[in-house]
């Protein structure tokens, strides 16, 4: 390398010279993500109150087996007894899909690398840890598999859309309740988050270099690019909506609140 490496940097000892509230954003992220993590873990452990006809909590979808209170597809699949299901709530198995998508998401990576990894905690503020290997070693090299988690996330959008369709089917026939709207808002926000993903943008056309020879992919890429500009907004809104949807269905199921029928 050139002569610059190893020469003296400005002799300024301070870790940073910032005078603004640079700590406020990472602290907010810690509080919000921490609160969501605590609530979703608690809700997953419950293995109860995840269904209030005809609403199914997104934490417990897909409900695949016959013994499930609200089988996602028709009569449900034959029950399979895995040892782990007896010990843990099935929500833990279900949440692996969406959780891995969010964990490897390019936006959330920024959020938690700053807030939890402290590398860096804020721009132009010195890293807390002296050593650094980025995403070149295990386990962070697995972030490269975000593409695969996106494929799984798309599958979950299909499943949750089906659940939202079933939310029109009340025991008395077709209807719309507040819960139906809650579930649809959740699906729309989750779909916006999933389809605004950077991997989605790349798969839809980002890999193309000569757009003029691929006009269809250019149009799709252009649409996803517009969505992608709001990816962080969708990331936070959908995180909130999925938690609040579970909370709403849980409270209705527990009888704490009553679901209002609109139609």
């Amino acid at each position, binding site marked *: 390398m050139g002569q610059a490496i190893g020469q003296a940097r400005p002799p300024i000892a301070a870790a940073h010279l910032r005078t603004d509230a640079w700590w406020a954003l990472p602290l907010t992220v810690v509080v919000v993500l921490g609160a969501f993590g605590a609530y979703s873990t608690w809700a997953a452990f419950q293995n109860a109150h995840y269904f209030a006809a005809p609403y199914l909590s997104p934490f417990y979808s897909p409900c695949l087996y016959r013994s499930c209170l609200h089988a996602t597809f028709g009569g449900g699949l034959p029950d399979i007894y895995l040892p782990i299901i007896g010990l843990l709530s099935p929500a833990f198995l279900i949440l692996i899909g969406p959780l891995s998508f969010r964990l490897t998401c390019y936006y959330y990576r920024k959020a938690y690398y700053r807030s939890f990894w402290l590398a860096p905690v804020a721009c132009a503020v010195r890293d807390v840890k002296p050593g650094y290997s980025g*995403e070149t070693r295990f386990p962070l090299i697995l972030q490269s598999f975000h593409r695969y988690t996106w494929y799984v996330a798309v599958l979950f959008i299909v499943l949750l859309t089906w659940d939202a369709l079933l939310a029109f089917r009340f025991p008395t026939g077709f209807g719309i309740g507040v819960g139906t709207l809650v579930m649809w808002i959740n699906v729309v926000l989750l779909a916006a988050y999933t389809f605004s993903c950077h991997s989605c943008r*790349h798969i839809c056309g980002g890999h193309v*270099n000569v757009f003029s020879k691929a006009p269809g992919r250019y149009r799709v890429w252009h649409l996803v690019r517009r969505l992608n500009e709001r990816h962080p907004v969708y990331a936070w809104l959908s995180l909130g909506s999925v938690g609040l949807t579970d909370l709403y269905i849980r409270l209705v199921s527990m009888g704490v609140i009553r679901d209002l029928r609109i139609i």
Partner: protein
Amino acid sequence: MPTYTMRVFRGDPGGGEFKDYRVETGEGMVVLDVIHRIQATQAPDLACRWNCKAGKCGSCSAEVNGQPRLMCMTRMNLFADGETVSVAPIRTFPIIRDLVADVSYNFEKAKQVPPLRLRPPDPDGKYRMMQEDVDRPQEFHKCIECFLCQDVCHVIRDHEDKKRAFAGPRFFIKIAGLDMHPLDTRDRSAFIKDQAGVGLCNITKCCTEVCPEHIHITDNGIIPLKERMADGFDPIVWLLRKFRGKSTSRIGRDRTSR
């Protein structure tokens, strides 16, 4: 008129310290104006690099209150009357004197980037590109090489040992611009991964936040490069490209050029 205490770094590789200067400012003044006023009235030996004073030459990069900025584009009315404002050189690179840094690291990195390798021209001997083909590289061409993104990037700012293995955000957008170029035929995969060190970037987006040209360095430059690396082990993309053919994507590029 508002008066500020300007806390300016004075020193060289042998040592240095911040010195305070009380400066009265006028309407519309920017930090660079204040530095010039200090030079004119209090410290004629204060060294600073500048040229256009219009945010286009990228010379007057510094850290104002700890934030990497162009001095010529930082208005004094951002700060409260009487506030103490610190001005330091960009801290990622070696200091020459006062506010002047040696940014030659970047010029060395620039030499390493594999240049464009043009495909053969059309049958009439001409090259043709459509606007939609060059929209993405054109965003990166707005770069004024102020190196604020390189300065704020924690990979090289806080980990000196990574400077050899990491190109930095400025050069990732340069590489991305070349890699997305519709006439280019070079495969830079190995370079991006091994020599430019794209895996070291943990996409915390500070480079994007400080860019005075508002280039979406991370979203439109670095992440697409990471995705292009991921293409290499995505069987679904591989299959789709097999069906579609090779004309529009990277798969048709010259693999021997690594």
